[in-house]
């Protein structure tokens, strides 16, 4: 069974979908791995290190792609790429299935088995394959570092001979995986951290990393069985904005990570809330690339508002620590392949009785994933 890892094409992408450590493990269970030359360079892995681990390092990847049984990437393949895949090949990558209808249909018709890393279910057992979590976790850390670097102050309190520097205030909106790690990191650096989330169970989790939870009474909110947030009603959203106002105004750093699974992220920080902040303050909008939690954020950019507030919308956060990010992504991918690995036949065999197969979108020409099918054709069910 041949596993092929092309170099990521997206501009500025430094991560790589497999690292030598897992190449070695895959070889050990009986797979062959081919990787495009210099694919790991951005994350600090040399071609030699891949060779040592047992991979074939290829310069023109197209040829290998044709033979590939599994293609592992971080970002989704292009439709062109798909053309060269053989029928029955398995494609593992982020797919953005809710928005990439065209690509997914192309996969279907190419007979490619498309696995979406976003659709790994959120169970305790599948956490080791959950790339959304592993990358969000790093994102939480990176966002705080970026905010701290952009801020014109330091985060911790210091009582010094040259006066007392008060601790900076950090407000984190949305305390999922990324939000919690952001809280913990800001806390570590000595900031005074407050957080808010619409899911009520999160209050305890926020306190469990040592921060304060901002209580805003929104009425019933709820969460899905996978632990994702449910979309707020417009009234609730209004209440939330109102409730956050004071906290945002007196914060030095605001970090937003709010997401609603399968939908555009909610806009929760409006321009007037931004305007009320002190000049020099910093906002990090984690969701800038997918629509934004903050009014005025621009994907991939740092915007300085008239009031002197910096809105960071860089995106692709975990890419800032590509070595660790690649290691974690590769570990997720390896665990996924391993889960479905058939030791005797030495191949990956999907088992649709296993819950985890929820991440499979297309298989043998069919759109097998019910959630996605539903999303495209809501009426058909």
């Amino acid at each position: 069974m041949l596993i092929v890892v092309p170099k990521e094409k997206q501009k500025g992408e430094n991560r790589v979908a497999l690292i030598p450590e897992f190449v070695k493990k895959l070889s050990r269970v009986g797979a062959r791995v081919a990787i495009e030359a210099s694919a790991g360079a951005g994350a600090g892995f040399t071609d030699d290190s891949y060779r040592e681990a047992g991979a074939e390092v290829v310069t023109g990847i197209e040829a290998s792609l044709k033979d590939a049984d599994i293609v592992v990437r971080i970002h989704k393949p292009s439709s062109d790429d798909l053309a060269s895949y053989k029928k029955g090949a398995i494609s593992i990558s982020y797919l953005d299935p809710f928005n990439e209808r065209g690509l997914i249909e192309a996969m279907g018709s190419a007979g490619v088995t498309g696995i979406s890393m976003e659709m790994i279910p959120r169970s305790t057992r599948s956490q080791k394959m959950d790339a959304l979590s592993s990358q969000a976790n790093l994102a939480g850390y990176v966002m705080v570092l970026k905010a701290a670097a952009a801020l014109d102050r330091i985060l911790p309190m210091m009582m010094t001979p040259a006066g007392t520097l008060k601790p900076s205030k950090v407000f984190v909106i949305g305390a999922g995986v990324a939000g919690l790690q952001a809280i913990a990191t800001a806390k570590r650096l000595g900031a005074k951290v407050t957080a808010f989330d619409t899911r009520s169970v999160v209050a305890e989790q926020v306190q469990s990393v040592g921060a304060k939870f901002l209580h805003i009474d929104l009425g019933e909110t709820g969460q899905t069985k996978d632990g994702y947030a449910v979309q707020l009603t417009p009234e609730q959203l209004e209440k939330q904005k109102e409730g956050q106002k004071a906290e945002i105004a007196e914060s030095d750093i605001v970090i937003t990570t709010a997401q609603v699974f399968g939908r555009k992220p909610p806009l929760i920080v409006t321009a007037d809330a931004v305007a009320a902040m002190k000049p020099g303050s910093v906002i990090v909008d984690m969701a800038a690339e997918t629509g934004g939690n903050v009014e005025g954020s621009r994907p991939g950019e740092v915007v300085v508002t008239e009031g002197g507030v910096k809105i960071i919308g860089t995106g692709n956060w975990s890419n800032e620590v590509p070595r660790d990010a690649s290691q974690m992504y590769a570990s997720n991918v390896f665990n996924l392949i391993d889960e479905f690995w058939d030791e005797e036949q030495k191949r990956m065999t999907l088992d649709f009785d296993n819950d985890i197969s929820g991440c499979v979108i297309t298989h043998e020409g069919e759109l097998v994933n019910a959630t996605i099918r539903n999303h495209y054709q809501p009426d058909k069910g």
Partner: protein
Amino acid sequence: MALSSLIGFSYVVSAALFIIGLKMLGSPATARRGNTLSAIGMLIAVVVTLLDQGIVDFRYIAIAVAIGAVIGAVAARRVAMTSMPEMVALFNGFGGIASLLVGWAAIAPDAGGIVLTTIFLSILIGGVTFTGSLVAYGKLSEIMPGKPLMFKGQAVVNSAVIIAIFVAGYLFVQQPENLSYLYAAIALAVVFGVLVVIPIGGADMPVVISLLNSYSGLAACAAGFAINNNLLIVAGSLVGASGIILTNIMCKAMNRSLSNVLFSGFSKVKSMDMKIEGEVKPITADDAFYVLEAASTVAIIPGYGMAVAQAQHAVKELQELLEENGAEVIYGIHPVAGRMPGHMNVLLAEADVSYDLLLEMDDINPRMETVDVAIVIGANDVVNPAAREMEGSPIYGMPVINVDKARTVFVLKRSMASGFAGIDNPLFFKENTRMVFGDAKETLSHLIREFG
């Protein structure tokens, strides 16, 4: 001063030495000196007793003392360090038979009811102590099978013996001159001693010895009443009372109640066909302390509950105390513990727990069998053996930290509630698991103070 006052006051001194000695025995720093003081007290008591004007002939005394001293000294010197417990059991038995004999010898034709009652008690308790200790000795030295010995109708036999003892006692006090009652009483006591100890397992013997030791104190006390001797009363009741307390402490350290130790053998016969799975065994922090104190390897498994309780600093403090106490402490960090990746790391780093002590799941699991106590602090899913054992479970197949393989497991949580995954945890019902209910931080603080 009159001789009798000299003896009397010397007894006061001996008694004081016993008391001080016992007190000093309670702390490692002074224990040895305490033992010496106590021995000096004994020496004084023996020497002044020899001055007693009632003693007209020293021959028998001299011979008996010589024999006893030689046997005692040789036995004490020869015995291997590992066989100490059975040696103590044996000595204890001799103490019991001595009380029995003293009681017997003290029978005087003119004795009143009270004296006779105390004589009877002295004989009874002495006899029980004697044979009970011998059986304990047998079990410990593996001359006898160590496992609980039970037979059908045991409860009935025991009850019959107890009733017979009461009857014999009554008759003896009424007609002391009729020696057959006396012999009957002796025989019953001796038999009862055996009956009481055989159904108890070898592992519980230390508790039994301690209890019998307490009895031998009571026997001495009864003998004191019989022959009207203060010192016997003081020393006997000291031993009796402190023995009971010690027995109790030992039970706690073994995670057992006294009645559980004494009667578990009996009850098992009755409940042979009952299922006793699924019992939750709570334990107080106080009692947990005794177990921890005796542990030499402790594994700490933190989970989300530690984070909720913000107990990380207390955990570190406990770790340090355990280390000071000579134990090795390691942490087992499950990759999904907590609510965010690295949750435990953040907290433990805050509390300045050395990175070197944090073991990954794969590193700690192979070591788990050598761990004396695994302390699960607010973790649930990540230590759930259902992942290994219950095919149907939603977490089946996920590797977990196998705390149930440790000798003893303490689970610190507030209730029997389930964790994030919402599934029950069979760990809580395992034989070697003890639940310490309450907020993790409070429980830990409690434990920490116990170490003070």
